[in-house]
């Protein structure tokens, strides 16, 4: 009887010990929930003043993508029907936003059904379904948050997003189509959350647009999960006429060459394309275009939080 008891106890202890060993790392390292503060350390101009019109450097756009970008007028965002229009989930990887992430769990099994990425403003909540559901038909309605599913590979959450709306690829007017898809690889290193975004668009890109971003855990920050209510108003009398859609016809955008001019860049570099992403493009800049850097920075020169640093922080050219 005693031997039987010992065997049973030892068996239970061994199994319990095994479960503890196996489960520890997985639960400890895959909790993504919390408020992840935006880290200002890259995407300097994109997250600050915003990319200049005509700055398509390092983006693998095709001719159609470039043409759409150059037809864009920011005045479009003042149209009553566009003021409350969200950006697509892709914007999270480069936009100047914190990430509020939380999970929904099944009340019976305790399993995570979805990871949710909050909205704050400008974009919708993205629900990353973890329950194995399939992506719907391509003809299904495309919501602002797209349709996203996730799987774990080790401690990396791999998120696949489809069904996005036609939306901005970069804040300066480049767009992606509603056929675009996105795969994100999300890993946590202590209080850092890193994300590699692999973005494909058969309409406006010649090859995947790949970006990496990082956030830092910021538990004391209060950051809304949802976007506030938006009420359109008339911002411009001209736009009260709903037949007007602000735009530029091909070859008529007066700002198209500004970025190249500001930085002495050849137009071929400013206009982007896959070749501008790779190191060998430097040789072309030097040998073919004989590029010379500007003598001195005159706009968007720094954004240090040190109050003792006085420099040109925006497009005005004024030292602040």
């Amino acid at each position, binding site marked *: 009887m005693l031997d039987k008891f010992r*065997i049973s106890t*030892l068996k239970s202890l061994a*199994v319990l*010990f*095994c479960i503890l*060993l*196996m489960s520890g*790392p*997985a639960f400890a390292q*895959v909790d993504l929930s919390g408020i992840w503060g935006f880290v200002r*350390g*890259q*995407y*300097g*101009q994109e997250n*600050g003043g915003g990319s200049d019109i005509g700055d398509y*450097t*390092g983006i693998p756009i095709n001719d159609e993508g470039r043409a759409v970008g150059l037809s864009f007028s920011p005045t479009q965002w003042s149209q009553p029907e566009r003021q409350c229009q969200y950006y697509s989930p892709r914007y999270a990887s480069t936009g100047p936003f914190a990430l509020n992430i939380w999970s929904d769990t099944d009340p019976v099994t305790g*399993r995570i*059904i979805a990871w949710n990425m909050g909205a704050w403003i400008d974009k919708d909540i993205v629900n990353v379904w*973890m*329950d*194995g559901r399939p992506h719907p038909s391509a003809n299904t309605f495309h919501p602002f948050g797209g349709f996203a599913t996730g*799987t*774990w*590979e*080790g*401690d*990396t959450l791999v998120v696949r997003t489809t069904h996005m709306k036609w939306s901005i690829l970069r804040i300066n007017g480049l767009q992606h189509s509603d056929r675009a898809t996105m*795969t994100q*690889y999300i*890993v946590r*290193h202590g209080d*850092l959350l890193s994300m*590699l975004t*692999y973005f494909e668009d058969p309409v406006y890109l010649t090859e995947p647009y*790949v*970006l*990496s*971003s*990082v956030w*830092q855990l910021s538990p004391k920050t209060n950051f809304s999960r949802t976007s506030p209510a938006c009420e359109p108003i008339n911002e411009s009398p001209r736009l009260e006429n709903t037949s007007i859609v602000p735009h530029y016809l091909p070859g008529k955008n007066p700002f198209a060459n500004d970025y190249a001019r500001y930085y002495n*860049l050849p137009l071929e570099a400013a206009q982007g394309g896959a070749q*501008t*992403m790779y*190191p*060998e*493009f*430097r040789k072309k800049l030097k040998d073919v275009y004989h590029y010379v*850097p500007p003598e*001195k*920075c*005159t706009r968007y*020169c*720094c*954004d*240090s*939080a040190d109050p003792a*640093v006085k420099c*040109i922080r925006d497009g005005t050219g004024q030292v602040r």
Partner: protein
Amino acid sequence: MTRIRFLILSAFSLCLCSRGFAQNAPNAKAAAPIDLTGYWVTIITPDWRERMVPPAKGDYLAVPITAAAQKIADAWEPANDEAAGEQCRSYGAPAINATPTRLHITWQDDNTLKVETDYGMQTRLFHFGNWKPPAGPVTWQGDSIAMWELTGPAVLGAGGNRGGDPARRFGNLKVTTTHVRPGYFRKNGIPYSANVRMTEYWDLFTDPSGTQRMMITQQIEDPEYLFRTWITTYNFKKEPDGSKWDPTPCSARW
């Protein structure tokens, strides 16, 4: 009694095996949960004008510089570096991941991972195990101590439930670099000091096309020239071979 021993041993074996062979591996190469070796090309997308081409003097965008750093950078003249034979100042460890470079990663020995760049022809050595930095002068690439950070041994399926291949290993590389010779964060004289400390996390993913992608997350601390920790990420794509490898010496201007 034999049965009890068998049960206990089986349970422990199962536990140890499931936590991965890596922790018991004889050296870092055998323990590697990911294979970083091969040729890699950087993808220059964010901060293109600061990374692809030499930025203009006074362009410090996205770097949390201090006023002391600004003072030095504002006085930067590439001719002075050329005269001093210090053209490699913007190719040191804290700067190199941001540059337009390819990487060639190999194992120098079982416990040393070698990372070479064609841009500036630099070599970083990541030392695993109980390696102790040698006494001596500071170098552009400093002293790097590396370790594998091992994660869940098995694939975690949808919903977080376990499944998949239990033999598959997961993890990332963590590298801490110190003892670096003072240099520039960018090719326009933004300085870092000998007290700079960099922590990197190297992650590996396979994209939907089957191509491997590497992401480096780095944190840089410099009490003299950074107002706060500077945190950035960089990404690289695996190349099939070294046919595009293009060794180019350091330059203070281009």
